[in-house]
């Protein structure tokens, strides 16, 4: 079972899109813009990692249920 706080690609990607939107809007104060840029670039790196390092996990439900309980 995966834990709830595990990083989901969808969430990381959504945060990236949101950051790009905020920065493109152009109304951020400079310090916040720089912060947003740094955050965005970190999210890009995280997305790249998640996309390139992932391996498909295959679970047989019956076996999993058996071992869980």
């Amino acid at each position, binding site marked *: 079972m*995966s834990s709830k706080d595990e990083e*989901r*690609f*969808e969430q990381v*990607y959504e945060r*990236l*899109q949101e*950051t*790009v939107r905020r*920065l*493109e809007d*152009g109304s*951020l104060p*400079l310090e916040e*813009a*720089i912060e947003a*840029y740094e955050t*965005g*670039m970190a999210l*890009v790196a995280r*997305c*790249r990692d*998640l*996309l*390139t390092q*992932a*391996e*498909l*996990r*295959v*679970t*047989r*439900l*019956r076996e*999993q*249920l058996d071992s869980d309980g």
Partner: protein
Amino acid sequence: MSARPRPAMFVYSVGQLVTYLRELLETDTFLADVWVGGEIANLSRSQAGHRYFTLRDSIGSIRCVLFARQAAMVRTALQDGTRVLVHGRVALYEQRGEVQLIVDFVRPEGEGIEQARLERLMAKLEEEGLFDQARKRPLPHFPRRIGVVTSAHGAVFHDICHVLERRWPLAEVLLADTPVQGDAALAGVPEAIRRFNALPDIDVVIIARGGGGAEELAPFNDEVVVRAIYGSVAPTISAIGHETNTTIADLVADVRAPTPSAAAELAAPDRRQVLSATEAAAMSLTGAMSRAIVERNGHVEALAFRLPALLPPLEKLRWSLEDAERAMERAALSRCAALGERVAGQQMALAALSPLATLARGYAIVQRADDRRLVRSAKDAPPGTMLDVRLAEGAIRAETVP
């Protein structure tokens, strides 16, 4: 009735008899769900849209009614002389003591019972809204847990994993292994879906099996199986057989895929596309950042250009300062000269008043030697007083004598 002990000579009313008959017919499960083949005769239609006809064959006949609501679902044209298969339940029309068939579905007899059964189920489920486009749920963009309902044996599961491995390895694939043909599938497929319903965070469920004949695909036309698919908590993708065989499972699924591999492709995005979208986002970020800097730089430059014009006129100030300095200098010089003249005048006056000038004329200044007091009167110098006498040139010490 004969089986029941009853008092002799008991008389029933007609109403009691027909009510008993009605209850007898209506509690019979066989009569409640029956398919009958025969030829239509005496067809009529009421104002309310109900159809009445007789269904007959060489042996007998039975009165039939098709109510307007069900008639709307029946697409087969009713006509005297047409041979049809009808579905319905047997009931008693109490007012006439007449047995009749309450029909809810009609198909041409030539189609065969399996097809007629299928058509009826489809009509029923459609009426209930199980195929409604409005109920079709969107598939998640980035699924994390993908449930697969299929057999662990055979190529289907392998094909699905292969596609997901290539496209979206971020996902976790859960297999609910179940037979996908024969009677075992009738219980197995609903059970597999129930298991996924009990798990948290299943983003999408693929129900798949390979191609096969009508008989092999039959479980996916079964009402229980179809309702289980409809009841899936997660959105469903069906991939049953080949594209040419449509099953009812395909109609209730949120999305229908032509093959199991295609189902896997619909279930997840392509990692390479998402990766290039990520790179595009990175470029947007950098672009937006440099625009933000260039823009602010422009503002700074514009202000820097305007700033000198906004300053007070320093040059002028400096000039007037220099003027003032020169004027002050001039004033100071002339004042000094004037003072110098006055000093010279005072010097001359002073010289004229100097006691030395008086001494030069032969006078002397007499002072007492002890306290240097001027002696202006003889009383100031009693005998024996030591005196200093100051002359024009030099001084004499003297002593008064008695």
